[in-house]
């Protein structure tokens, strides 16, 4: 192969390789901040992407509508059966809500970690090579999105914002294998049991809820929601349902597998939740607590 490995090409190839390694290590070091040219490219490409994905979603929307039309009869039968339960449930929810508001008025407490302002957004792209579980949505800093905000669909929590530019933001899904990805969660059933969502079991397709105090009893089928104590996510977003409970590797705390409530495969409309109460960089984010202890974030 004389032509492929001529001297000039070999030198070029070597220089290219060194340049490549340097670039990759440079951009791997700090992936959560986009520099100005990166932001510019992201916004321009994102604009073009929106032009393409909006019509596609319209078409897939029509197909979905036809599909749901075909299932209408079955669904109607099932829903009718549940309608009676629903009315009584609604009445008691209203009652409790009123009582809650009255009690809050009495103690003069207005702020609530449950409250959030929803930012409706459309998914414009999914990372096509799918090595990382990322989606890109069409709302950015201009619309009030910030890093680490919770992202959900109507079914439940799906991920959090990891990168923002003025007009787009990147969301990392819960099904990621990133070890630094934590969500503070709670199992609220008679008593509140706290834990941390840490990691995703790729074989079982389930989330792993770690660090549950072993004094508490966790049962299969209990609902897991966000606790709001991680500092950034609002309280009460559904994450999923417990499917199995075991003890962790060291036998000190319990570990539960949680089947996610939301499906991660076909996503089109998502809601970014901007919490009304002041956010703190706790376990939901980088765990620096920079807002509480001055200078803590700068040390690391």
């Amino acid at each position, binding site marked *: 192969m004389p032509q492929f490995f001529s001297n000039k090409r070999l030198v070029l190839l070597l220089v290219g390789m060194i340049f490549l390694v340097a*670039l990759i290590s440079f951009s*791997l070091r700090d992936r959560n901040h986009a520099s100005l040219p990166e932001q510019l490219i992201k916004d321009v490409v994102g604009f073009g992407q929106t032009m393409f994905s909006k019509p596609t979603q319209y078409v897939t929307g029509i197909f979905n509508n036809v599909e749901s039309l075909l299932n209408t009869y079955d669904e109607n039968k099932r829903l009718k059966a549940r309608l009676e339960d629903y009315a009584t449930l609604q009445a008691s929810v209203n009652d409790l809500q009123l009582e809650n508001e009255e009690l809050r008025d009495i103690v003069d407490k207005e702020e609530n970690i449950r409250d959030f302002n929803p930012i409706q957004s459309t998914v414009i792209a999914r990372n*096509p090579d799918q*090595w990382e579980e990322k989606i890109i949505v069409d709302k950015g800093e201009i619309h009030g999105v910030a890093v680490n905000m919770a992202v959900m669909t109507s079914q439940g929590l799906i991920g959090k914002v990891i990168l923002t530019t003025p007009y787009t933001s990147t969301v990392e899904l819960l099904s990621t294998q990133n070890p630094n990805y934590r969500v503070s969660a709670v199992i609220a059933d008679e008593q509140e049991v706290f834990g941390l969502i840490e990691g995703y079991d790729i074989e079982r397709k389930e989330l792993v809820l770690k660090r549950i105090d072993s004094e508490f009893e966790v049962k299969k089928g209990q609902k897991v929601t966000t606790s709001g104590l991680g500092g950034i996510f609002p309280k009460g977003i559904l994450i999923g349902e417990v499917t199995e409970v075991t003890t962790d590797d060291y036998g000190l705390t319990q570990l539960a597998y949680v089947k996610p409530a939301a499906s991660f495969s076909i996503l089109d409309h998502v809601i970014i939740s901007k919490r009304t109460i002041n956010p703190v960089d706790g376990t939901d984010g980088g765990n620096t607590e920079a807002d509480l202890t001055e200078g803590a974030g700068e040390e690391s």
Partner: protein
Amino acid sequence: MIRYVVIIISVLLFYMEPIFGLFSPIELNGHFYVLVPRFLIIYLIFIAIYYDRKRAMLYGLIFGLLYDVFFIDIIGLYSFIFPLMCLVASFIVRFIHHHLLVATVLTLLLVAAVEIILFVFYTSIGIKSLTFANFYQFNLIPTMIANGVFVLMFGWLFKYILLNRFNQKLLLLQK
């Protein structure tokens, strides 16, 4: 006219990829199969085979860079792989016949090479932990089938357009 068609198709394919990515992964019998659309690199390899190697590498560099910045946030990954694949394709094609079927097989082999390079890269930097057997069964095979269908559907069209452009350029040079 046809000069711009070559560029327009690559821009179209660049934007179509993430939209097809939205449909993946597909669930079948409790397993998730990942289909990665690799339309752009297929087209670039066709450019390298039928039209112009340098042009293919230039497009590969530009689109690879856009890909890196917009989706991956690791600059230098696709902007290296895309031109490399174009170079390898144009090198191999010197020794073999320019038939469409040969080009199709060659393209699919190179797409598989891209997937395997990415598998090695991502597992070695620790972003993903995946055994090769699982990668082969749930990522590589479905991806190759999906892209195979794509090449069979559009390969002849790419060849037709690119050869037209090639002949047009030859005529201009002769004048």
